[in-house]
C-alpha cells in the first residue's frame, strides 16, 4: 500500500482554500495510517462541521460527517459498539472546544480509546472569520473588530483533567513532530488529543497582518519551540507531548502495537 491509496485523489483538488493548513494534516495522517496498517476494514473517521470536517470525504475510509460539535459522542459510541476498530476524530477547534465543549469535558473523563486531531486555526474559518474559543485575546476578527475579549480555552488543561490521556501540541510547519504525535496518539491506549496549530490565511491570517500562508508557516517556525524532554506541562508556543499514565484498555485495537518510534 502507498500513502496515496489512503486518499480519494480523484476528488482533488480539494475545496480547501489555497494555502490552507488542513491538507498538511491530511498528508501526515495518511502517511501514519499507511505505516500503521490502518485501512477501510479496521478504521473509521469521524469528522465535525467546519472546513476540517471535509477530510473524511477525501480519504479512502468509511467516515461520518457529524452535526456541528457532535464528533465525540458519535465516535465514542462507534468505539463502544466496535472496540476492534480504530476510531479517529478529525475536526476543528470551534467544533471540538466550543459547540462540542461539553462532550470534550465528559469524553475525556471516560477515557475512550479514540484519537482526536484538532485543526486549531484560532478562528471560525468556514463561516468567514469570527472569534473562536481558541482565538488569542486581542485578535481582531469579523466578530471582534476591537480585538477578542476573552481568555482562550486551555485545551491542554482540559485534556489533562484525565490523568491517563495523551496530549500533544504541534504545528503544521513541524511536519516530523506532527507525524510522530499523530502516530503516538493513534497507538495510545486511551484518549489522545493532538492540538495542531494550523493557518487559515483567507479568513484570519491576512486580517491579522500575514501576507501569505508561507508567512504564517514561518511564524510557526520561529514562534514555536520544542519543550524540554520530559516536560509535564507545555508553555504557550511550546510544542511537545504530555503523556498521562497509560491504562491498558480492554478490547483495544491498539494495545498490541509497538512503540511510537
Amino acid at each position, binding site marked *: 500500500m502507498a500513502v496515496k491509496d489512503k486518499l*480519494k485523489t480523484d*476528488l482533488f483538488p480539494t*475545496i480547501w482554500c489555497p494555502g490552507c493548513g488542513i491538507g498538511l494534516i491530511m498528508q501526515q495522517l495518511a502517511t501514519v495510517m499507511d505505516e500503521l496498517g490502518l485501512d*477501510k*476494514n*479496521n*478504521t*473509521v473517521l*469521524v469528522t465535525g*462541521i467546519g472546513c476540517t470536517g471535509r477530510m*473524511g*470525504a477525501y*480519504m*479512502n*475510509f*468509511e*467516515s*461520518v*460527517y*457529524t*452535526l456541528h460539535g*457532535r464528533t*465525540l*459522542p*458519535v*465516535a*465514542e*459510541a*462507534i468505539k*463502544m*459498539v*466496535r472496540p476492534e*476498530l480504530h476510531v479517529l476524530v478529525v475536526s476543528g477547534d470551534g467544533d471540538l472546544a466550543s459547540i462540542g465543549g*461539553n*462532550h470534550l*469535558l*465528559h469524553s475525556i473523563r*471516560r477515557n475512550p480509546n479514540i484519537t482526536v486531531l484538532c485543526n486549531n486555526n484560532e478562528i471560525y474559518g468556514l463561516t468567514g472569520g469570527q472569534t473562536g474559543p481558541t482565538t488569542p485575546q486581542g485578535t481582531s476578527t469579523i466578530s471582534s473588530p476591537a480585538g477578542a475579549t476573552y481568555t482562550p480555552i486551555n485545551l491542554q488543561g482540559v485534556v489533562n483533567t484525565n490523568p491517563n490521556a495523551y496530549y500533544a501540541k504541534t504545528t503544521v510547519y513541524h511536519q516530523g513532530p506532527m507525524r510522530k504525535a499523530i502516530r503516538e496518539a493513534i497507538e495510545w491506549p486511551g484518549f489522545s488529543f493532538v492540538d495542531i496549530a494550523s493557518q487559515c490565511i483567507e479568513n484570519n491570517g491576512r486580517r491579522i497582518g500575514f501576507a501569505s500562508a508561507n508567512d504564517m508557516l514561518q511564524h510557526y517556525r520561529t514562534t514555536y519551540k520544542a519543550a524540554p524532554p520530559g516536560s509535564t506541562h507545555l508553555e504557550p508556543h511550546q510544542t511537545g507531548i504530555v503523556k498521562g499514565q497509560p491504562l491498558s484498555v480492554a478490547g483495544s485495537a491498539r494495545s498490541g502495537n509497538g512503540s511510537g518510534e
Partner: protein
Amino acid sequence: MTKRLVQGNEAVLLGAIKAGAAHFAGYPISPSSEILAQASVYAASHPEFRFLQEEDEIASANAILGASLAGAKSFTATSGPGFSLMQEAIGYGHKVGIPCVIVNVMRVGPATGMPTMPGQGDLNQARYGSTGDYTSFVFYPSTVAECYEYTIQAFNAAEESRSPVILLSDAFLGHLNEVADLDAIDVPVVPRTLEPLASGGTRLFSGVATYPDGEPATADADEFIRQYNESRDHRIKVAEKYAFYEYGWNKESETLVIAFGITRRIAQPLAAHFALFRPIRIWPTLDRELTEIAARYKKIIVIEGSDGQYANVVERMLLRRVERVPLLGGRMSLEAVREGLARIGMLPAEPAPSDSGSPARVG
C-alpha cells in the same frame, strides 16, 4: 406463558431487548428514567448490550446514531425537554438514513414544565421538531403490553424505513403497572438493514447535502429534490405496513371520539355512548382510515392532553370542524373529560357503567 406485573417503562426496555437492541445511551429525566436505570442493570449482566449514561440528551441522540452506524440497533429514552435537545440529531438521522428509536415519555411542557405530570403535548414536536422537511414515524401505545409490542414495531419500522422512529408514551403510561404476559406477544423482528461501518467500503455518512461520491451538493436543487423524494416515498411506503389503529366502542353512536395513549384509557367509561378511533401510528397520519371512518359520524370529539395538537391535524385532514376536549396541566382524569364534554354540550345524560375492557386493535 408468564403473567406478571410490568411497568410501562420496563415494558419498553423489554421490547427493545426483544427487538435486538444492543446499545442504549441516555440522560436521566422524569418520567422516563426507569428505562435508563433498568438498561444499566441489564447491561451489567449482558456485556454485549452497550450502555452509556451521557452528559446530556444531545450526546445521547448523537451516540445512538453512531452506534447504529457501527452496527448496533440502538435507542434512547427521554421526556419533552430532552426530546427538544435531540431534535437536531433526529433530523440528521432522517437525512443520513439511520435506523434508531427515541422513546419520549411525555410530561407537561413547555420548558421544565410539570416534570411528573402526564401530558401529550409533544405530537407536533415529534413531527416537526427538526429543521427542514422529513417524514416522521411515530407510534403511541395505550397499555403496558402495547408498550412492549410497539417498541418492537418501532425498531422494525426504523430498520425498514432507515430512519429514527419515535415511540411516544406519557407519565401515566410509563409509570403504570399492569398484569401482562409479554411472552405471549409475538412480533417478528426485522433484522438489521444497514451495512455496519468499516465493512470494506468508503461510504461517507454526511448531514451535508452531498452527491453519492461525497462531493458537496449544497447548491443543487435537482439533486436535493431527488434524494428527498426518494427517502420520503420509501418511508411512506414502509408506513403502510405499520398502519396501526383501533376502531371500536359503540359504533352505532352518532359521535366519534378520537383519543390515544393514556387518554383512550381515561375515556373508557364513555364506551357505551361514543364510537372510538384511536390512532396508534400518530405520524404519518392515518388519512385513509380516519377519513373513511369519520364519514359515518355526525360529530367528532378529540380528547387529548394538549391544546388541540391532534384536533388541528384531524380538522385539516377531514376539512371539517371537530369538538375539542383538551386536558391540560396534567389534569388527565375522567372528571376532566366529563367537564370538557359538558363545556361543549356533549356530556352523556347517564354516566355509563365502568367498562374495564382492554383496548382492541386493528391494523
